[in-house]
Structure formats: structure tokens, C-alpha cells
């Protein structure tokens, strides 16, 4: 088996002096896997993903992303992640994080900024290959009719499609998605998750995505990781994620609409 795309060892994250928000003994994600992270609010899902993207640094432990390793310790400040590695990890945000005044096309094209150097890109000139790639990505997320529209004229679901297209243009090896559908209604949520998983499979990306709806994880993931109070309490195939497993992840708190979601 090849090296894992993502590996956490003895990793602990703490904000201030409170109890750790994430405390993971071991977690590995292999190339090409589609992993969904579920768990109650405050379980550490977002922290796990932001850690993997280099937005958050650990208190101790080891983080390996796409072959580059960071060792966290008391004497190590948060080292800024280097540009070539940032380029290889795509991130889809809960709040979409699109530039609202800019067009769909611009937002998607800017996914290629990690490859651009020099003055041309600062003056708004991008290579023709990247411009074509942006159009293909817009087609893939089904927004061709809105290509030149400003993003603030789109609905939430459409804005997240822009976020997905931006990641396609980035051409990353690993895609992280932090609650990408938690602000969308259940039917739309299922559509976007299906789109994201489809994109990852078509482009051969590894996908790690946190979700607030276990039913979606069960339906679309290869593997489900259950987080509770910062620790991995469940890890298995999506087929084996039964109601008992869900109850053990969420504890006494009932998971949101375990029953059925989507069409």
C-alpha cells in the first residue's frame, strides 16, 4: 500500500487553557478514499479539517499531509504552510467563502492562483489553459448559465457549487470539506454532497468531509469516522454504520434526522 495521504499520530489541539478540542491517537486516510467525519457539535470535526489544511496547529503530535510531516511540540510555533503544499490541498468551506462581488467565472478561475506567478495574474491575465479549465469546472458543477453573473446573485446551493468548481480548478490531491452543506436544506445538501463525492472520484482526489447528517455519510462515503469530545470513537465502512453505531457516536444526544434524507 502507498503512503497515506493524511496521517495523524498522538495529535492534540487545544485553544487556550481549556481541555483539548482534538485528541487523536492515530488516524490515517489512504489515497483515493472518500471519508466522512461525523459527530456532535463541538466534537472537533472542524478543528480536524482545519488542522489538516494548516489553518490550525497542534499542541503536540505528528501531522503528515501528502508526504510532508510536521511535528508539533511546546517549542514549535505554528510554521506557515508552504505554497506548493497549500496548492495540493483543496478546501470547501461551510460558509462557501466566495468573493461575492466577483463573477462565477472569476471565483472559479482564482482556484488556479496557486499555479500563477509574476505580474500577469495580478493584472488579471491568466493562461488560456486555466481559463478553459475554469469553464470545464463550471460545466461540471452545472452553472454554465450563471458564468458571468456576480456570485452574490446566486442561491446558497449555487454559491457552494462555485466553491466546488474553484477546488476542481485548483487540481489538488486532497480535498477537505468542512460542513459543506450545513447551511443548506436536506435535498440540496444531498445534491451537493453527491456532487463533491462525484468530483473527487472523477478527478482521483482523496476526500475528507465533515457532515452534520449521518444519513448522508452512510449514503455517499466509503468510510465513516465518528468523533466525540475530540477523540475518534468509531471508524469503519459506511455499510457498517448502523443505528447503534450512530447512537454511540452521538451519545445521549440524538443525531439530526437519522431517519431519511434526500430523495
Amino acid at each position, binding site marked *: 500500500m502507498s503512503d497515506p495521504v493524511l496521517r495523524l499520530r498522538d495529535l492534540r489541539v487545544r485553544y487556550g487553557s481549556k481541555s483539548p478540542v482534538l485528541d487523536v491517537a492515530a488516524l490515517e486516510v489512504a489515497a483515493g478514499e472518500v471519508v466522512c467525519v461525523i459527530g456532535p457539535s463541538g466534537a472537533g470535526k472542524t478543528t480536524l479539517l482545519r488542522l489538516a489544511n494548516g489553518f490550525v496547529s497542534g499542541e503536540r503530535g505528528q501531522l503528515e499531509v501528502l508526504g510532508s510531516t510536521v511535528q508539533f511540540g511546546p517549542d514549535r510555533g505554528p510554521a506557515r504552510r508552504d505554497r506548493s503544499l497549500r496548492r495540493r490541498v483543496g478546501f470547501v468551506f461551510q460558509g462557501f*467563502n466566495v*468573493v461575492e462581488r466577483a463573477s462565477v467565472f472569476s471565483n472559479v478561475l482564482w482556484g488556479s492562483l496557486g499555479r500563477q506567478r509574476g505580474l500577469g495574474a495580478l493584472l488579471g491575465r491568466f493562461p488560456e489553459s486555466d481559463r478553459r479549465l475554469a469553464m470545464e469546472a463550471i460545466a461540471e458543477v452545472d452553472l454554465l448559465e450563471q458564468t458571468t453573473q456576480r456570485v452574490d446573485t446566486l442561491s446558497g446551493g449555487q454559491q457552494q457549487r462555485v466553491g466546488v468548481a474553484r477546488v476542481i480548478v485548483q487540481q489538488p490531491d486532497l480535498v477537505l470539506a468542512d460542513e459543506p452543506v450545513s447551511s443548506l436544506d436536506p435535498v440540496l445538501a444531498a445534491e451537493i454532497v453527491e456532487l463533491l463525492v462525484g468530483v473527487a472520484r472523477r478527478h482521483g482526489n482523496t476526500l475528507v468531509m465533515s457532515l452534520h447528517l449521518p444519513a448522508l455519510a452512510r449514503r455517499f462515503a466509503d468510510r465513516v469516522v465518528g468523533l466525540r469530545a475530540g477523540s475518534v470513537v468509531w471508524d469503519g465502512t459506511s455499510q457498517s454504520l448502523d443505528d447503534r453505531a450512530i447512537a454511540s457516536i452521538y451519545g445521549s444526544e440524538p443525531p439530526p434526522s437519522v431517519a431519511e434524507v434526500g430523495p
Partner: protein
Amino acid sequence: MNTESRATGHTVAPPEQSLGATLRRAAGMAALAVAIAWAWRGTGFEISRLGGSLAPLAEFLGRMAPPDLSALEVAAKSTAETLQIAVLGTFLAVILSIPPALLAAANLTPAWIHQPVRWVLALVRGIPLLLLALMFVAALGLGPVPGVLALAVHSIGMLAKFYADAFESARQGPIEALDSAGANWFQRVRYGVLTQVAPDLARDTLFRFELNLRESLVLGLVGAGGIGFYIQLYIRSFQYQRVATLTLVILVIVVLVEQGSVAIRRRLR
């Protein structure tokens, strides 16, 4: 009135009225009253004497009427010069404000950079325009050029701060997204920040241009060009009817520019 909720029968006490808050409010009002009384006494301001000053005021205004239209040519030329000084001074100020504004934005630079830069900008804001104009006239001689430079330097203190505030108002999320895509600092500023705050920058610039047009009138008093020079010349030589013409012309220009600027600013989004 009782505080018993009809629905539940529970009695809930209203929030406490703290004595401290009451005292603080009273102290605030007292301080304000003292400040006004101090200023009133210090300036010898007497309402009864204002009535007596109405007659001299009316007499002065009377000497301005009717406006001497032979001064129109001078008015047109010198107004054009004032406008030119304001345009060029604002343009230079924009160019010179962008670098310190980027350095003064808390979301773009660490505290040890943006804090000192903000202090320097506050200092620059504190230098009166008239003082700057005197300095540049002393260095470069009479004429509009020292006026342009004085206006540019004077504007930086405010404009760079406003630009920095605009940069800081950019939502962090999209900037983070571009960072995550591998964008470098310049690319994040160009696409993440500038795209978001472009309307604010345009509004700030237009507002500063309006201010510059009005403030540049005093430049003429120290020989730094513009219509202000002729206004003070005619006042000193008691040609009040010419002063009236110049005042009316500049009034029209200022109102027109403000209306135009407001209309443009409203359209930015």
C-alpha cells in the same frame, strides 16, 4: 403591575438598576456641563451682544452687493486652478496612501507593523494644511505646485487610514479560501481584499476629493495657488463686490462637485 407571567405563573424579577450606572451617567452629564460653561466664560460669548452685531454684519454684506461681474474671468481661471490642485493633490494622495494603508491593515500585517504605521498616520493627520503649505511654499516658491504637494501629504493621514479600515472590513473567509488554493500575499490582496472593498475605496477617494476642493481654498492665503489668493487679495483691497463674485463661483463649483460625488457614491455597490 405585577411581574407574574400569565402563562406560567412564575414570578421573574426584572433586571437590577445598578447604582454605578446611574452615577456614571450623572458624572458624564456634569462633565459636559462644566466643559460648556468653561468655553462660554473663556470666549466672552454673550447672547445680548449678538443682536448689536447684526447691523455691522448687514452693512458688510451690503458692500458685497451687487457682485462685480467683471471679476468673472479671474474667478473662472482661478477656480480652474483650484480644481486642478484638488484633482492632482487627490491623485498623488491616492498613490501615496496605498502602501501605508496595506501596512496599516490589521488583517494583512502583524501588530508590530500596523500599530506604528497607524501612529505615524495619526501624526500626519495632526499637521495643519496651512503649515504644510507654508513649508512647501518656502521650499519651492509661490504657485500651485506647493499647493498640490501640501494637499497630497495632508490627505495621506486620513486616506491611508480610511483605506486600511476598508481593507480590514473585507471578509476573512474568501481570503482564507484563496490562501488555501495556494495564492501568495499579493494575489490574496489583489483578488481577496481589493475585489471585496473596491466600492469603499472609491467612496473614500471621492469623499477626500470633496474635502480637498474645499480645503484647498485656504492654500491661496499663503501663496500656494488657486482662488483663495484672489479672495484674500480683494478683501485686503476692500473690493467686496469682486469677493462676492468669487465666493458665488466657488460655491457653485463646490455644490456641483458634491452632488456629482454623492450620485456616484450612491451607485457604487
